């Protein structure tokens, strides 16, 4: 019987296997950022331990960093956290892309950009969106700070082998429908706990035809379906993306590596513990209306009503969410006015995301009363966008063009949404208070966010795309 990619990667990383225990797994790449690492380094110091493989670690600053007026950091506690990582990287000999460094950016954007992210690797980071790297056919998952410390000192982790799940996306995606809509539709259909205890492989025609950046968007949000990790088998698209990047193997080594990478793809007769299927052509642009990522629906639809749910607890959850969001049951999605637009985050801040949004806003103006910020995912993404003139398109439309970082996805820096105000956001979480205390977040694709910025409320971006095609 064939093996799926999850089993292949797992099996090649087991350092120690023993009945009744988790497996001891080797970790190939450890990404580090300033928020979830200080206590881990402190733990090493207190115990007199070293970093076992500093060469397999890579650190950057992203969660806390201001996206304007750099290098000034006004918040002294944030500043302390940032200098702590710089000191730790120096003390333990770890490569760091510090603020102002041309490699700096959101950790899940720079890993792939630099070619650190490669198929077949086990990749961890003290950040739940580490699942992003699964787009390359890597086994990548988020860990807590104690596990960060464990990886720093041993380069391994004790892990129970999760179950496997295939989510097959059949058919072709409609024009104006994005990778973001696929993953939001999956989460809306099966819920935020569907992947708990599982590693998900995304398969099917619609997935195969996606670019690497689109695949990253899908895998990024597999944690929002509760999955331990999400990944996509490598193919020529994957290999082409990696070729020539700084940390990618070169010349003959690259040929050898790419043959190995392609051999990791799931065998045609591979099986999974669970298989789910969805048709791409039934997916329309999605807007979330509630306080977790499963609370979303098509832009042409309405906010659900209590009658749509069977259990009392679901009805209760709906009412609680709508109370927080300031929405009415049955309200059309297109009638929801917005005051803020955030284009950024490890989900949707890559060059193709910025290009898509720029295409929509080109020659138009932000709707009066709407404030928009664009936060490229990395310093090099920003540079590339500027070379294409995307910054000018956004600035002329009235957006702010910022430095890279996590920014308003979680609002750890100054980029927050005021209480009671509404944001069309290309990020990944719409939890209560995520973008600021009392802030109301609607998750959408970059194209949908851009269209909402122009109209002042949600609109079906497919109309825009059709207009553009007719012109």
């Amino acid at each position, binding site marked *: 019987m064939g093996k799926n990619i999850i089993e292949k990667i797992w099996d090649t990383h087991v350092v120690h296997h023993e009945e009744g225990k988790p497996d001891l797994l080797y970790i190939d790449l450890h990404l580090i950022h300033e928020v979830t690492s200080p206590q881990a380094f402190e733990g090493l110091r207190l115990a007199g331990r070293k970093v076992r493989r500093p060469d397999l670690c890579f650190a950057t600053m992203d*969660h806390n960093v201001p996206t304007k007026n750099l290098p000034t950091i006004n918040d002294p506690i944030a500043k302390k956290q940032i200098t702590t990582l710089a000191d730790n990287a120096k003390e333990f000999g770890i490569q760091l892309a510090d603020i102002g460094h041309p490699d700096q950016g959101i950790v899940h954007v720079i890993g792939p950009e630099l070619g650190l992210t490669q198929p077949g690797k086990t990749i961890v980071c003290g950040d739940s969106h580490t699942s992003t790297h699964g787009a390359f056919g890597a086994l990548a998952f988020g*860990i807590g700070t104690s596990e960060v410390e464990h990886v720093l000192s041993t380069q391994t982790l004790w892990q129970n082998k999760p179950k496997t799940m295939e989510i097959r996306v059949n058919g072709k995606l409609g024009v104006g429908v994005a990778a973001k809509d696929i993953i939001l539709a999956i989460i809306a259909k099966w819920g935020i706990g569907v992947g708990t205890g599982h590693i998900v492989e995304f398969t099917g025609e619609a997935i195969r035809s996606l670019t690497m950046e689109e695949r990253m968007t899908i895998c990024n949000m597999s944690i929002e379906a509760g999955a331990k990790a999400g990944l996509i088998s490598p193919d020529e698209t994957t290999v082409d993306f990696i070729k020539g990047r700084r940390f990618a193997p070169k010349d003959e080594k690259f040929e050898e590596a790419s043959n190995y990478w392609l051999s990791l793809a799931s065998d045609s007769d591979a099986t999974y513990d669970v298989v789910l299927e969805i048709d791409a052509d039934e997916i329309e642009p999605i807007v979330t209306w509630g306080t977790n990522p499963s609370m979303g629906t098509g832009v042409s639809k309405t906010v659900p009503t209590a009658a749509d749910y069977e259990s009392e607890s679901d009805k209760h959850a709906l009412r609680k969410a709508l109370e927080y969001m300031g929405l009415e049951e049955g309200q059309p999605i297109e009638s929801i006015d917005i005051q803020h637009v955030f284009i950024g985050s490890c989900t949707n801040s890559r060059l193709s995301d910025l290009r898509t949004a720029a295409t929509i806003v080109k020659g138009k103006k932000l709707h009066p009363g709407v404030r928009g910020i664009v936060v490229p995912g990395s310093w090099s993404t920003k540079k590339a966008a500027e070379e294409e003139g995307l910054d000018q398109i956004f600035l002329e439309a009235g957006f702010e063009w910022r430095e890279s970082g996590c920014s308003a996805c979680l609002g750890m820096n100054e980029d927050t949404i005021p209480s009671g105000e509404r944001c069309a956001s290309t990020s990944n979480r719409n939890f209560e208070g995520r973008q600021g205390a*009392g802030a109301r977040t609607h998750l959408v694709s970059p194209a949908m966010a851009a269209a909402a910025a122009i109209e002042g409320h949600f609109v079906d971006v497919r109309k825009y795309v059709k207009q553009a095609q007719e012109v």
Partner: protein
Amino acid sequence: MEPINKVTSVITPLDRKNVDTDQIISKEFLKRIERTGFGKYLFYHWRFDEKGNENADFVLNKPEYKGSQILVAQDNFGCGSSREHAPWAILDYGFRVVIAPSFADIFHNNCFKNGILPIKLTEAQCDEILAKGMKTPYSVDVNLQDQTVTGEDGKVYSFNIDPYYKEMLLNGWDEISLTFKYEEQIAQYEAKRIAF
């Protein structure tokens, strides 16, 4: 970490599903570089209003649950962000046990590293315990060795737990010290590891 075996306490009924780690510990409190002192920020935006006054309706603010060491919630507790500040806040506030029908994976792992016992009971059992605890203060004995939760009314709920993590919690072991015993195997693996 502190070993854990028996805990007897009134339960704190948090009748919500999908409690995410952003609610457990909000982002404005993640900038500290210590592991301790997060308890006062636990569930901050549910506990306090915008002026910093206590919300009398929120369960943690009700006097009958003060000093409780056992939190009971609904499905998918701890979903979202990997922040270990969430279990640090729970522990620092005084909870040693969290009972729910299911936990998000990263949060679940994080509990074991901090001497917090996460107990999975069925949805029906959690509903029952929550209902009792919301009506009047309801005390239970948790026994990790026996894998039981025994209510003051004599009702016994048994639970399963991974034997590896049970051992870790009962002994309060430092996992890194244990892993160092496999150093030779790690070195052997490194010698033949596939890397490009």
